[in-house]
């Protein structure tokens, strides 16, 4: 090892991000990018488009139009690549193009009736109430995000170009004004309105020519597309711009538009897609480039929101339009979205880029590049070739997993002053698996079983041996037949495997015919996964936060089918079918109740937030009154109520509970000062015992670290509570991006401070907290269990990221009616 344990060169700042989730916010930065085959391929397609000569309809090597798809599972770097494409396109097009990134809205993220965004002064002008008749749908929501990214002045400028061109052509037709036309061609910034007024053919013929040119360019074929052309032309007439922009933003057309034939609102999926296509043509015209990246596209293209009928037709048309418009469309999403599309739609996507797993060399390069961002001389240390290989193997090269492991491994290495070894990686992977603990996952399994109507028994003992205990037993039929479910921690080494092997053996011994569904919470080596499948008779499930419930529901059905066919009693089977039907019905009722409960929770959250606002206001008023009354000196500001969603509060409670040992120091000190404690003359004075403990600098340092940790968590909790009370939704009921960024900043602040605290020094705290000072001077049991570093780590490591996610999930659910 080339560095000293106390001050290793790589100890300054963790170069890896604990959340490892790319976001639009990071796009303006310059994150580390490793040129995997997928990234190289995507870059190549983009470059072909960007280099194509103006007027070329589409680069032949990209195939059917300028549409590509980025496909990959969670954490494989789609959003990161989307951001890279955006950055690369921006650098290339400069001011001669438009590059836009939007992420598709989630299922609940739809514009609410009456909350259609509208141009403020149109509402304020009192020209009629803006009442939305919008039906919230996937592409409408997507379009709203799209139009949010466009600037009104930019759209006007693009349409205005047609006006200038029409005027220039008119002036050019006369020998008398040809020189003026030439001047206008060169200097496009000259305001042509005065020239048009004095030398032009008049406003009406000029606007007529603008409309004719727009029609030629946009080739409108539907009622809406014709409306779109009319509206764009109207934007050039004084007094119409606000009304048109409001309509483009989704509001119903105002009377001054309906009187001019604009009657279609952009409030259906079909129309929203047509509108995006029209803009693509408008922005992709002539020498301009228009690049649109739609991320998480599976949210609008697969599952229950999969487009059908006219909407599917409009989507196909959009893909075709991008090709004709000399625009470039990137669709990034989970593999589901591509699979759910029909063949003729897939054919319109020129190229599909499958996200690549990182090789060991990629991981090594990534580590080195990341570390060099902070220190130009950095190399692979504290990582080693062996640990890099192991990380790659353990994560199967999935970038998000790689980054998270690197983050935690780096922290551990800094803390312990050691290089990252495979053993350390294994330990880190064991601790930092998912947000949920294994016990949480067991609870989720029970929840899904109940919701789906499966009769089950928790902690089911097949025989007396604890090894034959199943977390759940799911009944199929009424002769005790069924199958087991076992939830386990990460399986990383031989010991872990051996423990499961013993359990599998015990289960098979107790009930040879049954199968057990093993659910693994976290990392598992691929080889071991296959072996476990053989041991338990079913391929294990690896817990994934987003897919878990859907996967589990599918597995429960498959397991039931296997178990059911295993029973020979057909009568029982028939009975079981009937019971199952009843169960299903109950399950349906249960789901309804659960939905209602969720809504009530959301309402409760909303009410709590309002109450919190009120309390906050009252506090401020109270403070203002106190300040106004100079005779009263405020003692200290009243604490803000710690209101927040219960699941977030639980995270903080667990975190603070893990530090509860600090409270034992208070107790030890209080008892040392207890009056009449009755300590016998045989026992040494308490002060001596405490002094003895304090002789060890470990205890003092440990206490300092623990107190700092506690204060850090408390401050973090207060910050989050204040944020929760302060944020407001946007008109669509979405959390505003500015508030999201605030939340991200708060959580990042926690994580970045936390990583500086030397947790390895916590062990010394037990020397103080376990002092045997008790009433009556008798030797008593230790007053507290020593603070366990593992427990602390489990609750405090990545707390920022967990709070961020949980809060966002809660905030989103609370806004969905």
């Amino acid at each position, binding site marked *: 090892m080339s560095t000293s344990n106390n001050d290793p060169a790589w100890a300054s700042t963790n170069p890896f991000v604990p959340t490892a989730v790319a976001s639009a916010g990071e796009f303006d930065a310059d994150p580390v990018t490793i040129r995997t085959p997928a990234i190289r391929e995507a870059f190549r397609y983009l470059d072909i488009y960007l280099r194509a000569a103006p007027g070329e309809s589409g680069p032949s090597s990209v195939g059917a139009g300028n549409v590509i798809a980025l496909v990959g599972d969670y954490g494989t770097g789609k959003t990161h690549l989307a951001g890279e494409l955006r950055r690369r396109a921006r650098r290339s097009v400069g001011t001669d193009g438009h590059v836009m990134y939007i992420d598709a809205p989630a299922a609940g993220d739809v514009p609410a009736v009456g909350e259609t965004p509208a141009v403020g002064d149109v509402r304020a002008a009192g020209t009629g109430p803006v009442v939305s008749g919008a039906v919230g749908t996937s592409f409408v929501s997507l379009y709203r995000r799209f139009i949010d990214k466009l600037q009104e002045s930019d759209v006007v400028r693009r349409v205005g170009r047609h006006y200038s061109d029409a005027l220039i052509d008119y002036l050019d037709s006369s020998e*008398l004004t040809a020189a003026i036309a030439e001047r206008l061609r060169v200097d496009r910034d000259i305001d042509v309105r005065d*020239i048009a007024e004095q030398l032009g053919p008049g*406003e009406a013929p000029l606007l007529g020519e603008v409309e004719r040119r727009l029609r030629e360019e946009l080739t409108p074929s539907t009622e809406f597309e014709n409306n779109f052309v009319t509206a764009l032309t109207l934007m050039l007439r004084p007094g119409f711009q606000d009304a048109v922009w409001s309509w483009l933003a989704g509001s119903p057309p105002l009377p001054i538009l309906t009187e001019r034939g604009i009657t279609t609102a952009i409030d259906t999926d079909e129309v929203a897609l047509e509108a995006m296509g029209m803009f693509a043509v408008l922005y992709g015209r002539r020498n301009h480039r228009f690049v649109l990246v739609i991320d998480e596209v599976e949210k609008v293209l697969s599952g229950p929101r999969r487009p059908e009928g006219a909407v599917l037709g409009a989507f196909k048309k959009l893909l075709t339009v991008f090709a004709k418009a000399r625009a470039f469309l990137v669709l990034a999403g989970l593999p589901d979205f591509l699979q759910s599309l029909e063949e003729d739609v897939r054919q319109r996507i020129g190229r599909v880029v499958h996200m690549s797993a990182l090789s060991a060399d990629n991981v090594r390069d990534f580590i080195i590049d990341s570390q060099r961002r902070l220190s130009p001389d950095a190399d692979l240390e504290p990582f080693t070739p062996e640990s890099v290989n192991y990380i790659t193997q353990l994560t199967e090269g999935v970038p998000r997993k790689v980054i998270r492991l690197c983050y935690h491994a780096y922290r551990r290495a800094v803390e312990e002053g050691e290089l990252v070894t495979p053993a350390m990686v294994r330990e880190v992977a064991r601790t930092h698996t998912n947000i949920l603990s294994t016990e949480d996952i067991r609870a989720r399994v029970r929840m899904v079983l109940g919701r789906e109507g499966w009769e089950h028994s928790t902690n089911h003992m097949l025989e007396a041996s604890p090894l034959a205990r199943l977390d759940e037993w799911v009944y199929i039929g009424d002769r005790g037949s069924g199958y087991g479910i076992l939830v386990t921690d990460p399986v990383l080494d031989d010991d872990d495997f051996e423990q499961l092997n013993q359990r599998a053996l015990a289960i098979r011994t107790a009930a040879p015919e049954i199968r057990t569904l093993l659910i693994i919470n976290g990392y598992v080596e691929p080889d071991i996964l296959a072996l476990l499948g053989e041991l338990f008779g079913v391929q294990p499930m690896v817990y994934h936060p987003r897919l878990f419930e859907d996967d589990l529901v599918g597995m429960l059905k498959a397991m039931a089918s296997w178990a059911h066919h295993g029973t020979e009693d057909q009568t029982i089977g028939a009975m079981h079918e009937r019971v199952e039907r009843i169960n299903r019905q109950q399950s349906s009722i249960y789901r309804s109740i659960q939905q209602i409960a969720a809504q009530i929770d959301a309402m409760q959250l909303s009410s709590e937030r309002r109450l919190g606002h009120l309390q906050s206001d009252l506090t401020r008023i109270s403070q203002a009154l106190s300040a106004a009354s100079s005779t009263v000196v405020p003692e200290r500001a009243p604490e803000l109520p710690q209101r927040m969603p219960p699941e977030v509060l639980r995270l903080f409670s667990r975190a603070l509970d893990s530090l509860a040992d600090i409270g034992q120091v208070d107790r030890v000190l209080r008892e040392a000062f207890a009056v009449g404690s009755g300590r016998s003359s045989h026992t040494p004075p308490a002060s001596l015992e405490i002094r003895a403990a304090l002789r060890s600098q470990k205890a003092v340092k440990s206490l300092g670290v623990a107190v700092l940790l506690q204060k850090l968590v408390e401050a973090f909790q207060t910050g989050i509570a204040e944020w929760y009370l302060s944020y407001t939704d946007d008109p669509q009921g979405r959390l505003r991006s500015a508030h999201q960024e605030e939340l991200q900043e708060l959580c990042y602040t926690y994580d970045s401070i936390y990583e500086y605290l030397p947790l390895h020094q916590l062990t010394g705290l037990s020397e103080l907290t376990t002092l045997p000072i008790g009433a009556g001077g008798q030797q008593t049991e230790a007053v507290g269990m020593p603070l366990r570093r593992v427990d602390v780590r489990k609750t405090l490591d990545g707390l920022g990221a967990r709070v961020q996610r949980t809060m966002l999930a809660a905030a989103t659910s609370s806004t969905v009616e």
Partner: protein
Amino acid sequence: MPDGSSVRNPFQLPKMPPEPCPPLRPWEWDIHLEYYVAVDKTEAAFADFERQTRSPESLTAHGRLVVVLGGEGCGKTSLINRCIASTQKNLKAVGVASIIVDLTVEAKNNQSIAERMRHVCDSLIDQLDVDQRLDKEILEELRRKESPEKAYSYLSMVLKRIAATDDADLAVIVLLPPSDDLAEEVVKYSDLVRPRLLFFAESSYLAANRGWQAKLTRSGPAPPIVLTVGILDPRDGYVFARERLSRHHGKIPMLREDAMNELQDKKPDLAIGQVQRLLFEVYEGVLQQEQPVEEVTMTHITDHILQAWH
């Protein structure tokens, strides 16, 4: 040669501020009647109007909507003002006094048709209030009417009653704001025509003989009158300029005929408003020059155009 700066621009209209292109207003200034020049098809349009309004009794008995169509600068407003002056004269001949209300600026683009029409109606009542020929009670009643339709209807009835019972006989002539592309608005005004109520509308967006025109209320004895003006005929430019210059008293640089003809050759779609504006500005420049200019040539015109924008 007198000092150029003291010479009045021959293209400036009498009684009007020194603006390049104001419309003639003969119903306000009699002298403006002399300034109409027989170019630009306006003479034919005006003759058409006179033919259709030969009977002043018909105008009072049925009212009228007159719509003038044509591009910007083609003389729509000047034609309307000429028609109004003529109507005023004809009505006066039969003992009917005209209340002429100019509401051409009383509408905005960002108003709906209903809002525009309501605003025009309110402004009309205000103007009638200022005019003082109608009783306050009548005006108050007009203000209480819930719609322009009812207000115009009531106003017409009041005017008829006054004619029958009082010594005065009044007709109200309204110059409406330009309707631009709102054909529906013109159609609505055709529905509002009542005895002793005359509306004059104009548009540079609407074209004649299109679908909207068929919707105009054509029933009854007083169908709307639609007049059209357009660009200048060849040589009209010089005819117009010569007429203006001939009205000037005192020495003034003359305009070469070949210059105007060349201008029209090079820019054949000139409208009278553009010529008026151009020559006003050219003469402004010529008259400001220290060195006297004997005659205005094509060079003066092209220099003016290019200096202004190049």
